[in-house]
């Protein structure tokens, strides 16, 4: 059974590493649209896929994954916005969990936008 003692151990480990992310002005942001439309279109597994992929690659200090509301393009949900500081914001549309690894690898790691997944490609 999960115990609070384990949580204390996690706390001590987390305290040992300085929390860079909070002070990291260069942290990129992944915003997953999670209003009614996004959720219904399957945004939850997409957010989970981003969290997992970013943890797997050890990027948790460099990228935050969070949710946002509806930006008015419900027909293109699940919508994911990627904001890399100093670069233009990119909007990915109809995102499926299978597409996530490529977005993380190409865009967040190597700074190449995955053009065919963007809103510009399907409009």
């Amino acid at each position, binding site marked *: *059974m999960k115990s609070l003692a384990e949580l204390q151990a996690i706390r001590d480990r*987390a305290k040992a590493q300085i929390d860079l992310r909070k002070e990291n002005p260069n942290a990129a942001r992944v915003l997953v649209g999670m209003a009614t439309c996004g959720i219904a279109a399957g945004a939850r597994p997409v957010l*989970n896929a981003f969290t997992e992929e970013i943890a797997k690659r050890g990027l948790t200090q460099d990228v935050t994954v969070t*949710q946002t509301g509806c930006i008015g393009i419900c027909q293109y949900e699940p919508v994911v916005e990627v904001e890399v500081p100093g670069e233009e914001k990119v909007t990915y549309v109809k995102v499926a969990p299978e597409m996530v690894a490529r977005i993380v690898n190409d865009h967040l790691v190597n700074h190449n936008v995955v053009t065919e997944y963007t809103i510009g490609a399907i409009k």
Partner: protein
Amino acid sequence: MRELSLNVMDVAQNSVRAKASLVKIEVSESDRNDNLTIAISDNGCGMTDEQVQQVIDPFFTTRTTRKVGLGVPLFKLSAEQTGGSFDIRSKVGEGTVTTASYVKSSVDMTPLGDINDTVKILIQCNPDIDFVFTHSTDTGSFTLDTRELREVLEGVSLDTPDVLEWIAQFLEENTQNIYGGAEK
């Protein structure tokens, strides 16, 4: 919505937008009484009686980016289509309680789905808000209270990956327990 847990995620975000600092999510299931009840309560800004009437209307939303607001209407529909009931009570300055009650055996019952995932994502995306999640069945019940976790964590954020992993496992183990030890 394919799962009630998705409705919960959606409606709980209304609490977030209402600037709540504490959101309680309670799921009570009983096969004996053929009932499942979901209650979401918050200490956010609340609504006037008139606004409460408006949120049930799909063509009402406080947002300006679009003209429809389907969160509450879909939640209400999911309950009423099973022969259950739906209720919102709210007071300005005090908060809102949304309760949906379902007849479990109805053919129109939507499965509860992965409610634990919903709770985990709500905590992950709103680490500064406290969540109290209670799930009960005929066999037993458990509660996850982020205020208690916060005490242990001493300033370490709830959205730290290892903490989220602990939360996910805590929820899963306890869920298996209250479902009689069977895999969910």
